[in-house]
């Protein structure tokens, strides 16, 4: 029979049971309470630290549109490549090496980095390393293909690609100085991108997600997502076409006149203060703002180079039209005339005698014309840009009134345009202004203002006296194109009366028609304006070379102005350094293209019509004899190529304008056009009549641009739209630009 447990056994069993249970419950509960309650918070935060990660979701940056809603700055998708080294470190050693080698090989082939650097990334003791930012889609696709090609190593577990955005400017250099550019993290660094950075940036979102030990995301339930809010977009007052025109002619002028310190141009609506174009040359490509141009590279590599990379880049980024000040010179006579006419201290017909020199408080001033202008009306004095006359009227005005108007024209303060880095003017405060300071100020010397200040003030002189707040952004819209903010034209004050303004327009029209700004003449349109040439005194002294700024401000149509254009060419080194010869033609070129674009029909004077603009009829399908009759009736010449009876093609086309004695070329056989070519002659230095003869003898047609009739003065061709030596079809129209090279101010 079985023996049951003895009492001693039972006692020992109970003892052991109690020991086990008590040990179990007491020790474990003490430990668990210690870890879970006492150290709980610490453990939890340490756990969160390793489990949670915070990813910023950058909001798509707002776009920038021009006034016609053309996209001029936008964001493209870019990609960031990263790896998770910890997930490699946790592999078996043999596999680790294979994976590292494969990754390094792929990166070195695709990402333009060396093998060792790439290998180094895979060995980092961290879970996340960014390998390369802002790569484009084809490169990202190459990486993806590489990863899937190596699926046996599961490379996709260790290498990832995140989508980000990259700023993109489709028009390259167009308006670059105005737009500015962004940095690596899409932060606006200059221009509008900088000024409106907060508007454009939007609100970045966050994803707080939990990750596992390999760096991969845990299931969705752990994610906290704060949606990113897309940045708002800017709609500019700037019109891409006008901007393009301004940049094109400014760039030509900067190059042709060998300007060593760039040039600036502003086109503004005089009745609103809206900037239609703001151009600076040399500029940069905002898609690659940190890339030196070949030109700058040469400067940098020159043996005794006094430049640094940063200086060269900064110079190109700088908005010369807003951030630089200069002495306006004779352009300022617009303001001086406004002041004295408004104060009724003179009239357009008051006469002044210019005897070459004038003394003010013992200081002698000379007129730019040797021997003086003699007796002239105030209006003629403006046309002649006569300094002694303006000194005289300035003295009549006196310091306090001059200062009052100077301030009223907004020349003592920044304009407050919505662009970064606007320069403050430098001028004589009323208290420090004596008769000599007043004298030099009267013709625009010894004080400095910015181009934007000057065009704003001059616009007030011709628009009826209203000083507007200049602005660049017309509207701010959200991502659904709802208008968030709309900017209205803002009049700061009326500086002069309507009637004074009318007088100013009359004077400035005369300056273009008969005076120093004759090179700003645009056939068919009334243009008024004033040129200026100022010496950069300090720079001249420093360099031992006489350095100038040639400038021009023009208005059109001058009888009821809408457009103001300011051209400023800094340190020209060409055949002339005068505003009349260097800057005024640029104004004409721009206005000639911009006015028709804005819907202004040319209205030619009798005189203009005389040597101008015969409309070419449609000759296609008509017989050769009919065409001959029709053409000769119009005062044109006909040149027939081919032996057919009917005309197949013609040059110029129906509706284009030709000058008297212009040639229409017709082809009587199919495909004739373009077969017969001619080399474009060099028109440089020719008078309009000479140019016309040369053109027609070559079977080419000519279109005059600029100053072709300057009274008794002789104007000469200085540029042509198709370069000398280019082979073109017979009958092609060449635009030739004329100016009066002797023009001063």
């Amino acid at each position, binding site marked *: 029979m079985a023996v049951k447990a003895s009492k001693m056994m039972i006692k020992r*069993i109970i003892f052991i*049971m109690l020991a086990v249970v008590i040990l179990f419950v007491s020790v474990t509960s003490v430990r668990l309470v210690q870890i879970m309650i006492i150290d709980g918070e610490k453990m*939890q935060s340490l756990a969160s630290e390793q489990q949670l990660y915070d990813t910023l979701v950058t909001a798509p940056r707002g776009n920038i549109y021009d006034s016609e809603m053309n996209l001029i700055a936008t964001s493209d998708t870019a990609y960031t490549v990263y790896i998770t080294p910890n997930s490699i470190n946790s592999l078996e050693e043999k596999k680790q090496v294979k994976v590292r080698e494969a990754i390094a090989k792929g990166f070195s082939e695709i990402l333009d980095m060396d093998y060792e650097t790439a290998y180094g990334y895979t060995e980092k003791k961290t879970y996340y390393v960014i390998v390369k930012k802002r790569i484009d889609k084809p490169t990202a696709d190459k990486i993806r293909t590489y990863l899937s090609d190596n699926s046996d190593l599961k490379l996709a577990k260790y290498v990832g690609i995140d989508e980000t955005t990259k700023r993109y400017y489709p028009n390259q250099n167009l308006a670059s100085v105005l737009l500015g550019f962004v940095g690596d993290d899409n932060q606006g660094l200059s221009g509008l991108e900088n000024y409106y950075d907060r508007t454009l940036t939007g609100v970045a979102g966050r994803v707080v997600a939990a990750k596992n030990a390999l760096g991969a995301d845990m299931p969705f339930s752990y994610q906290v997502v704060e949606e990113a809010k897309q940045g708002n977009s800017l709609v500019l007052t700037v019109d891409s076409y006008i901007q393009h025109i301004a940049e094109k002619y400014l760039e030509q002028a900067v190059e042709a006149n060998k300007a060593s310190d760039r040039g600036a141009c502003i086109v503004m609506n005089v009745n609103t203060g809206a900037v239609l174009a703001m151009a600076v040359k040399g500029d940069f490509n905002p898609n690659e703002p940190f890339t030196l141009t070949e030109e700058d590279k040469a400067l940098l590599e020159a043996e005794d180079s006094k430049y640094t990379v940063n200086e060269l880049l900064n110079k190109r980024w700088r908005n010369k039209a807003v951030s630089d000040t200069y002495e306006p010179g004779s352009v300022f006579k617009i303001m001086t005339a406004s002041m004295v006419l408004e104060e009724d201290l003179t009239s357009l017909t008051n006469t002044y005698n210019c005897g070459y020199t004038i003394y003010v408080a013992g200081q002698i001033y000379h007129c730019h014309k040797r021997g003086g202008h003699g007796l002239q009306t105030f209006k003629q004095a403006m046309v002649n840009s006569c300094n002694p006359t303006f000194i005289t009227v300035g003295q009549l005005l006196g310091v306090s009134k001059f200062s009052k108007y100077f301030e009223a024209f907004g020349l003592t303060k920044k304009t407050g345009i919505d662009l970064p880095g606007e320069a403050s003017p430098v001028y004589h405060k009323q208290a420090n202004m004596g008769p000599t300071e007043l004298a030099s100020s009267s013709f625009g010397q010894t004080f400095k203002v910015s181009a934007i200040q000057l065009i704003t003030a001059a616009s007030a002189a011709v628009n009826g006296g209203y000083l507007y707040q200049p602005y660049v952004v017309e509207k701010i819209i959200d991502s659904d194109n709802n208008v968030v903010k709309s900017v209205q034209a803002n009049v700061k004050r009326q500086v002069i009366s309507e009637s004074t303004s009318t007088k100013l327009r009359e004077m400035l029209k005369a300056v273009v028609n008969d005076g120093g700004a004759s090179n700003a003449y645009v056939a068919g349109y009334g243009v008024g304006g004033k040129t200026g040439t100022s010496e950069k005194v300090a720079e001249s002294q420093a360099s031992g070379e006489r350095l100038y700024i040639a400038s021009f401000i023009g208005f059109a149509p001058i009888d009821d102005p809408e457009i103001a254009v300011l051209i400023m060419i800094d340190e020209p080194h060409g055949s002339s350094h005068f505003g009349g010869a260097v800057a005024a033609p640029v104004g004409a070129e721009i206005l000639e293209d911009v006015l028709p674009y804005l819907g202004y029909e040319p209205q030619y004077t009798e005189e203009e019509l005389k040597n101008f603009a015969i409309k070419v009829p449609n000759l296609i399908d008509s017989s050769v004899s009919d065409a001959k009759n029709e053409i000769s009736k119009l005062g044109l010449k006909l040149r027939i190529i081919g032996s057919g009876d009917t005309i197949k093609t013609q040059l110029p086309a129906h509706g284009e304008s030709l000058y008297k004695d212009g040639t229409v070329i017709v082809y009587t056989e199919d495909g004739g056009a373009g077969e017969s070519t001619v080399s474009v002659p060099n028109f440089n230095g020719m008078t309009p009549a000479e140019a016309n003869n040369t053109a027609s003898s070559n079977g080419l047609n000519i279109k005059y641009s600029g100053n072709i009739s300057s009274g008794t003065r002789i104007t000469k061709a200085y540029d042509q739209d198709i370069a000398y030596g280019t082979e073109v079809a017979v009958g092609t129209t060449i635009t030739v630009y004329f100016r009066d090279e002797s023009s001063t101010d």
Partner: protein
Amino acid sequence: MPAKKIKNKTSFIQSGKLDITFLSLVLILLSIGLVMLFSASYAYSYTYYGNSYRFISRQALFAIIGVAIMLGVSKIDYGILKKLSWVIYAVTIAMLVVVLIIPPMSAELNVHRWLYIGSFSFQPSEIAKFSIIVLFSAWLAANSEKIKKLRYVAWLLLLLAIVCVLVVREPHLSATILIFALGIVLMVVGGLKLRWILIGGGVGIGGIVALILTGAISYGSDRIKYWLDPWADATGLGYQTIQSLLAIGSGGVLGRGIGQSRQKYLWVPEPHNDFIFSIVCEELGLIGAMVIIVLFCALVWRGFTIAMRSKDRFGTLLAIGLTFQVGMQAILNILVVTNTIPNTGISLPFFSYGGTALVILLAEMGIVLSVSRGSSIEKV
């Protein structure tokens, strides 16, 4: 050991009522264990096998088989083990030798713990625990007088030592400790003189201290270093411990909720194995953890109660040994997971992943139930 089977002449079938309380406790622990295994293995399984159910489906299958075996074993008269005790011991020794000889299959070099038969694998050390329980229970039940003599005590210690030396050579320190403790506990219950218990206790403690101080077990002493300061090598040897502590600490009073552990996302290495209790703590909190501890204590209490009620001493000792084994293993596991003692590599019964180990465990629980059936007949 003369045959004493008189009641069941040719059959070994037990027909008494089994202990419902003990069975219930086993099934409750098993159910909780399966749920927690599913949760703990979910992310690991998905990451490495592309399927979240790999671990739970296998474990559940083994659990069903194991429960069937448990119920089957409970119907068999445990007395049969008495006759097989020496055979079991001999087979165990053979397996422990073989496992040291054959090259290990796992990546861990120089760890000889597993034997593979076809697609099944098991640890001979698991068998060794059972073997010592059966052998010592059988011998002590039959020789309650001899145990009072020193030479027989020495004989038993020798049998125990052979197993312990073989297991510690694997190396498998926790199993060694457990086997040694099982042998000692059975000897104590079996009638070892109190004097020798005290002397033995003193010598044992002294020996352990000596081993630690001399650094005789290098594999152990390294563990001790990172036990005392796991942060000294937070990404290396201390990593598992730290991740376990972070999981436990994240649980708080109420836990994150079932399925909500974050540490199981590969932070705790192999969260379904030895460190499953850390995930249990993170998801169920202090309260849940204490409930499970209390359930284990209840299992110990009920197993010991069955032991005390057994119709014979063999049943008593068998139930003590088997129950003690489960309780002790749970204690050691939780102490390791909470970094209260150095990491020795010990699984949590009913919870940790391992099909054959679970089947063996449930079969052992079946033997305890068999003991309970025997005593119920006696009472009727």
